[in-house]
């Protein structure tokens, strides 16, 4: 029987990121000429999405003198020149874009808010008619994709009641752990059957996302794969696959020092590389049911 470790899932759910938000200097000049604009400091839930915080952030800037009368769908964010994908969880955006710090980046995370010039070539446009519809649809599509990866169909998700499906998004957007996890536990434990594959994406800065079928156990169901096994297969040049057990202490030390060059970050934490991938998937997936793992070299 697979059980959720609620100490872990609560910890991940409550994980927050201190963020400093400054207005883009060009926007400040055109929208708030004369006003002195300070940065806005706030906490964001790592598992949440930027469109879910935009309304409250916009209010702060408008109150401080930004003459913004447009739609929230026009607002976007940037970190060091990189527009932030609103359909990625906030924690993933931070871990990926600060991956050169190997999990100990300077905080608060300093990002820039833009009120104009939405970069349609780099970010998906949000439907202005309903600012929450687009993120909701995108989130549910990820949950469906995850279910398909685990089971080869989305029957498990579609067998949930309409209310249960609604509770996933409502639980996430209102930060209601019980509402979300009462439904999500059935998905991530796959009703106590071993999933065919694990919903997982691997990210390296400035490289295409890696996603491929990852089985959690070997064909005979007698060996659980670890994160090392998976990364060793996907990125053999970064994570040399484990060879036979080393026979001398010296050989062991050598391998440890090689492995220490690259680390896998999830929820801002360096994940022990021998963690079984199935346990990781059930307990440490983002709310969209994917493990979004950032590799820091």
């Amino acid at each position, binding site marked *: 029987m697979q059980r959720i470790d609620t100490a872990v899932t609560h910890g991940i759910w409550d994980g927050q990121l201190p963020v400093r938000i400054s207005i883009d200097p060009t926007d400040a000049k055109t929208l708030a000429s004369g006003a002195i604009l300070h940065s806005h400091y706030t906490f964001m839930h790592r598992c949440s999405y930027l469109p879910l915080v935009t309304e409250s952030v916009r209010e702060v800037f408008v109150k401080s003198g930004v003459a913004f009368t447009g739609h929230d769908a026009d607002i976007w964010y940037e970190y060091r020149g990189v527009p932030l994908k609103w359909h990625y969880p906030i924690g993933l955006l931070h871990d990926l874009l600060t991956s050169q710090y190997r999990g100990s980046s300077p905080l608060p995370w300093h990002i820039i808010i833009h009120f104009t010039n939405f970069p349609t070539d780099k970010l998906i446009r949000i439907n202005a008619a309903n600012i929450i519809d687009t993120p909701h649809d995108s989130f549910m599509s990820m949950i469906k994709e995850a279910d398909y990866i685990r089971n080869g169909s989305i029957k498990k998700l579609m067998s949930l009641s309409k209310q249960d499906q609604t509770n996933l998004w409502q639980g996430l957007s209102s930060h209601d752990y019980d509402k979300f996890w009462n439904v999500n536990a059935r998905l991530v434990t796959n009703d106590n059957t071993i999933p065919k594959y694990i919903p997982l994406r691997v990210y390296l800065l400035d490289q295409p*996302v890696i996603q491929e079928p990852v089985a959690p156990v070997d064909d005979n169901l007698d060996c659980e794969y670890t994160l090392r096994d998976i990364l060793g297969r996907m990125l053999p040049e970064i994570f040399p696959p484990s060879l036979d057990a080393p026979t001398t202490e010296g050989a062991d030390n050598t391998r440890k020092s090689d492995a220490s060059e690259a680390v896998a970050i999830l929820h801002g934490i360096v994940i022990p590389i021998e963690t079984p991938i199935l346990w990781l998937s059930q307990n440490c997936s983002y709310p969209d049911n994917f493990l979004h793992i950032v590799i820091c070299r």
Partner: protein
Amino acid sequence: MRGLHSRSILTSKRDTPTRLTTLDRFGCVRSPSASIVFTMSDNPTSPISSPPTPRTANPAAKVVVRFRATGNAPILKQNFYKITASQKFQTVMNFLRKELNYKAQDPLFLYVNSAFAPAPDEIVGNLYKCFGTEGNLIINYSTTAAWG
């Protein structure tokens, strides 16, 4: 119309998958025209015994996309196309719009395997590796939200 497509990164797929026969060391199949089509085994192999993924992807690597109309969506004259594996799903969306002569504001919904709508920035090669069937990536399209 064909002339337009020959300039796009999508090329008309004239060979049927059964004619693409030569296996290379990555488990890819070489077509007579030397473009490459990923193949997915019917019997999934374990991650450890699988051949290594070609990380230094051949820029010519292609995926066969098979379009299927759903509901009252217009059908295409030809429904097999080859697309470069490193392209984003947005390219597939743009191509289908152009092929159907749909404007940006016309509603069009794309799904993989009648199951989910990939994000525009997902990579076609990744979708093929995870969701491809019988040598194709099956894309269902509809003018109304069908599985959303």
